[in-house]
């Protein structure tokens, strides 16, 4: 049995004796007999480290690790620099608590302050928080931030990732706020429908750029609609794309949110990921979660602290702007180290490479009979094609070659495939994919 209890039986007895007890059992006397467990936990006996490692090795081997990935849909296979993994494995960062004790937490605090700055730079916004759970909850929290007394309708584009829409709906259900989903048209938000749906009861309009289908939205038009209706404008964005794309700030967004996973976090079957949130200056006190601010210590030295805590649950309790307590701090650190290692040029390169690879793949795919672009707008690194045969059959074939193909869509898109490429997909890999697709579909 593995154990992390250092005290030996002898020491335990000494400690008990020092208190006048003879068994640990006596310390539990306050627990009424009726709620005591009558039998041991039905959990297998503990294992030595070597056995645990073997057991979990066998479980991990039941998963297939693809050598080539062409699937995105909210989780992106980008290159993670070695330095990022090394730095974020430092025990101090990994095992520290939330930095309430500023004097011994300047490392965490400064790293978050730097993260906030980088998120502001990426999004073109004024203030960011220290992270929330993921892109979907970030969107939900943003929608909640926009609530106003007479505005209780959140308008969301149907071209936003479904998982985000579902999460926002869950968050708003029962709070008196309503979610209106505006349909998409040819893979982009139906701007006319959006205009129709927006009015004086609209608290906010939420779009995703690039959207779920990889298409680039006409956000300038959306901004006009938002302004006209007096609603807040929320943009959910892919942070890597912001290496080159127009920022939420430049589009006039009030809040920018997004999934930070592409910034150095492994795919990890969906988590832990990273929700980032940034807002204009006048909304900053409505941001949920931890926020770090710069100040000075008693000697006048630069110091960082958790600030604006009056928004938070441990102070305000039921009046807090959010209930968030634990966030994704280590993931935020990872994103910071990633952005520092990539630098301005590197992030731009990741964006350009991802987009260029996707366009190459799309072009080559569409040379094949039965494959064509299902949507015709400009796109970043994801796109939808038709498929000659059964997409699932194609996926099985690709899987045999160690390739995770695009994502077979459902609903009105059934039979279509949502493809994704990043800098990780070499021309060679894409040519191989095309060759296999050709063989399967012939």
């Amino acid at each position, binding site marked *: 049995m593995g*154990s992390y*209890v250092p005290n030996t039986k002898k020491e335990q007895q000494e400690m008990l004796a020092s208190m006048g007890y003879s068994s640990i059992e006596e310390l539990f006397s*306050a627990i*009424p007999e009726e709620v005591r*467990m009558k039998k041991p*936990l039905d*959990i297998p*006996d503990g294992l030595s480290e070597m056995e645990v490692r073997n057991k*979990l090795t066998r479980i*991990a*081997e039941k998963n*297939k690790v693809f050598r080539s990935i062409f*699937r995105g849909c909210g*989780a992106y296979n980008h*290159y993670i620099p070695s330095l990022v993994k*090394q*730095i974020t*494995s430092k025990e101090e*960062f990994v095992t*520290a*608590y939330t930095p309430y*004790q500023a*004097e011994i937490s300047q*490392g*965490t605090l400064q*790293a978050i302050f730097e993260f906030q*700055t980088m998120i502001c730079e990426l999004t073109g916004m004024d203030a960011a928080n220290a*992270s929330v759970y993921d892109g979907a*909850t970030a969107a939900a929290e943003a929608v909640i931030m926009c609530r106003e007394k007479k505005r209780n309708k959140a308008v969301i584009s149907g071209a936003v990732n479904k998982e*985000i829409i579902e*999460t926002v709906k869950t968050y708003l*259900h029962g709070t008196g706020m309503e979610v209106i989903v505006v349909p998409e048209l040819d893979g982009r938000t139906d701007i006319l429908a959006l205009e129709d749906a927006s009015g004086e009861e609209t608290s906010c309009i939420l779009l995703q750029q690039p959207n779920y289908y990889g298409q680039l939205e006409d956000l300038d038009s959306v901004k006009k609609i938002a302004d006209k209706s007096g609603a807040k404008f929320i943009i959910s964005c892919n942070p890597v794309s912001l290496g*080159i794309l*127009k*920022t939420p700030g*430049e589009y006039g967004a009030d809040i920018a949110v997004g*999934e930070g996973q592409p910034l150095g976090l492994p*795919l990890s079957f969906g*988590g832990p990921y990273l929700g980032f949130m940034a807002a204009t200056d006048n909304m900053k006190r409505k941001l949920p979660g931890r926020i770090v601010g710069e100040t000075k*210590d008693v*000697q006048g030295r630069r110091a960082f602290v958790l600030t604006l805590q009056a928004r938070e*649950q*441990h102070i305000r*309790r039921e009046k807090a702007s*959010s*209930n968030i307590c*634990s*966030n*994704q701090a*280590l*993931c935020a650190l990872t994103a910071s180290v990633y*952005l520092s290692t990539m*630098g*301005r*040029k*590197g992030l731009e390169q*990741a964006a350009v490479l991802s987009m260029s690879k996707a*366009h190459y793949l799309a072009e080559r795919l569409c040379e094949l009979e039965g494959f064509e672009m299902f949507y015709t707008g400009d796109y970043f690194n994801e796109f939808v094609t038709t498929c000659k045969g059964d997409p699932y059959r194609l996926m099985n074939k690709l899987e045999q070659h160690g390739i995770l193909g695009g994502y077979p869509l459902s609903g009105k898109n059934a039979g279509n495939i949502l493809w994704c490429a990043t800098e990780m997909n070499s*021309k*060679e890999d894409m040519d191989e994919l095309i060759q296999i697709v050709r063989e399967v579909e012939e």
Partner: protein
Amino acid sequence: MELIFEKSVENRGCEILPPSDVPVIKIENRYLRQNDLHLPEMSETDISRHYTELAKRTYGINNGFYPLGSCTMKYNPKINEEIAKFPGFSNVHPLQPVHTVQGCLEVIKLAEKYLCEITGMNSMTFQPAAGAHGEFTGLKLIRAYHEERKDNNRNEIIVPDSAHGTNPASAAMAGFSVINISSTKDGYVDLEELKKAVGENTAGFMLTNPNTVGLFDKNILEITQIVHDAGGLCYYDGANLNPIMGIARPGDMGFDVVHLNLHKTFSTPHGGGGPGGGPVGCKSILKKYLPAPRVIEREEAFDKYDLASAGELSIGRVKEFYGNFLVIVKALTYILTLGGDGLKEASENAVLNANYMMNQLKDTYHIPFAGPCMHEFVMSLEELKKETKVTALDIAKSLLDYGIHPPTMYFPLIVHEALMLEPTETESKETLDQVIAVFKKVYEDALNNPEVLTGTPKKTPIGRPDEVTAARNPMLRYIF
């Protein structure tokens, strides 16, 4: 120290990505960013040194004693981290076909099975990413329960004043009204208050047991009965589960929903604030409301595990995908390592360590609630403050100079000048003895040299920061 931006030099950088092997696509100008992107331009040498310096200014469990009450800062085993880094876990796309992720699904299913056994629940969702997220999810289940029964007036959640701040905040976020009730002077739920508070508007009652002063509420069965009798459900805040694993189960106490903090009880690291893991367990009556997708197990030998999508009654998704998966991997590793007996041993020793510390300190510090305590205990510095003006904060800050992380300060709110200590079971008697000596020394100093304490800490990278200015004129980012 300097910010990373202040160390940046134009055109410096690391060479991480290759040039393009396909034609480079240029996109229309209207889609392009206009403003410069200021990110650090640094060499690897300097990035490495920057974060080394930040790590040196960070206090992890590997640096020393970390007795944060209610936070359960136990040792984070390295084997957990190693296993979470297996490519078979970390390089798996969340939307891979289920037959290619059988191992991931098995991890979730095993974790569900064991954590249900520990808590006495029937089903569990792993989507919530943290304790507060779990509370929110659990409260949504309670809402769904009443909604399905068309019991539409039940919009009140009762919370004792000793509760963690997340409890009322989560209730409000889930759309409930919060009814606060006061505790008895011993820190327990005041049964009379509770009886007065429940009624036809009661949706549920939230409690952590042992409570936030470290005591197990002996009336627990009566408490949950009162709530149930009034038509409400009982929510168990799992923040304080660490002392009762294998000893008592929330399910057996009458709780209907529970969240766990994998980053407290199940040894996954806190990461400087996260990521955590806040799985929510529930009794069978609530299973149909759980968020989806859910891992289901089949009889088949191949593709034994599958993902089921949401039924009509599900509260819906509370997060992308399936939760903080790697955190679940770490927690499962821990459970497999300790096993049933080991979990109980951990709880027993968490309680032993807390009682030992309390007992050694009780003649020096004022301990408002009589023992034995569970895994944590609260001291009040109220009298010391009256006598010497030295506050709980001053005591806490003094500890920093001894290389000790202070206890939780000013919580629970029902104790004035509170310091709340939770040593956890992974600390040795030798460490406790050293820390006890420091606590006594600091108390001595408070009596004899109070002004010295108010000037602490002296040996830390910074002294006490000016928090007021920080909040009044917030500087939340570096301006280029």
